[in-house]
């Protein structure tokens, strides 16, 4: 680049902590006339038009900013894999088996309060969505599962979820039943571990 005024404008706008008017820029550049500054700014704007940064004027003040189409580059996403907590897994299961279901209903089924964050996590994971409101007093929000839920868990539809009798038959309820039997039958109590 040849133009010394353009170079000085470029450096000044780069280092400035806030947008600058053409007058302020002329002041920084010492001898430059307003028309020279204006010309220099036009030249710079032209130069940066297709680059990763743009020179823009807002309300008579000039500043550099990153090109709008590159916003995604400036926000970097870091993915961390985490296992769903036991509480969240239970809530997800209840939504899946009972949908659409309100928070109060979830809590009634679980027998414990559900922290607000739990449903947020499930929605962030993309497995649960808000499915409207129940038309009862208070109009509570109701929740349902998403197509991503079926996909993640390899289900063709919700009807693929095993019923409670099947669960028992498949021994999936055994941990609890075993513990119950152990407590009633054996001389020393077995310790249920439900970490």
């Amino acid at each position, binding site marked *: 680049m040849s133009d010394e005024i353009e170079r000085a404008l470029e450096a000044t706008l780069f280092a400035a902590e806030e947008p600058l008017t053409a007058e302020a820029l002329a002041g920084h550049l010492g001898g430059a006339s307003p028309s020279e500054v204006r010309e220099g700014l036009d030249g710079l704007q032209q130069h940066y038009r297709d680059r990763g940064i743009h020179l823009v004027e807002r309300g008579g003040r000039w500043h550099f900013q990153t090109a709008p189409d590159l916003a995604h580059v400036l926000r970097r996403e870091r993915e*961390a894999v985490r296992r*769903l907590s036991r509480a969240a897994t239970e809530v997800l*299961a209840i939504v899946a088996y009972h949908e659409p279901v309100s928070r109060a209903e979830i809590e009634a089924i679980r027998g414990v309060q559900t922290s607000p964050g739990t449903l947020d*996590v499930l929605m962030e994971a993309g497995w649960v969505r808000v499915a409207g409101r129940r038309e009862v007093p208070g109009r509570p929000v109701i929740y349902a599962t998403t197509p991503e839920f079926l996909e993640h868990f390899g289900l063709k539809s919700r009807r693929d*979820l095993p019923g409670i009798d099947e669960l028992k038959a498949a021994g999936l309820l055994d941990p609890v039943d075993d513990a119950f039997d152990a407590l009633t039958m054996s001389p020393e109590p077995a310790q249920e571990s439900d970490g």
Partner: protein
Amino acid sequence: MSEDSLILPLGEAEADDWSGPASSPTDDAALYLELDGWEGPLDLLLDLARRQKVDLKAISILALVDQYIAYIERAEALKLELAADYLVMAAWLAYLKSALLLPRDEQEDPSPEDLALRLQLRLARLGAMREAAARLMGRDRLGRDVFLRGAPEGLRTDRKTQWQCDWFALVQAYGQVNARTAPVVHMVRERPVMTLESALDRVSAMLGVTLDWIELRQFLPPHAEPRLRKSALASSFVAALELARLGRAELAQDEIFGPLRLRRVA
């Protein structure tokens, strides 16, 4: 020289900046200022060596010694307060000079030439670092000559969590919710027991038959099933204690865990 004021604001820098005695006239006032500015004998020696305006490798040590001693003598004449290490250096240099001038007969180890060489090497190293420091400070420095972006937008790192759960965990969780919240029915099974009342009746009745000692075990129903037998033993034992308390029976046991016997008090 005090090293307390290490960093000075730029505004008063020129006044405070040590500008080097090499350029100043060597009148008495200048001498005073200069001794204030030197950081020790080696510093003063280096400055004097520089004034010989030759490569530090080619300086004349003898000339340097003379210059140094002349400086110190003039400072003393002016009654300037000199730090002790300047005087120690002066004494050492005077010794070095005389050793260098002496005829070279069985000189001590290390030889004065070696000492002079070492001094020269030290001066060269200090001089090199002093020049390097000046060149370093003269570079285009960030925040003084070159500047960073004044108002960077900043980069963001969004943490995104990818949640993991599988079919088994889901279904098992549901099963456990159901099991946990299913209504619980407590069943108390009927069991054969001997109440304390019936044991009391039974034991007192049997005691009435004889005055001999009877072992507790003999009070139990003969063909009872094990669970009833256990209950009967417990009840009969309590009944025996109760009868003893009432003064209607006495108890005897020969050893710990030995058979417990009782008989009627006549």
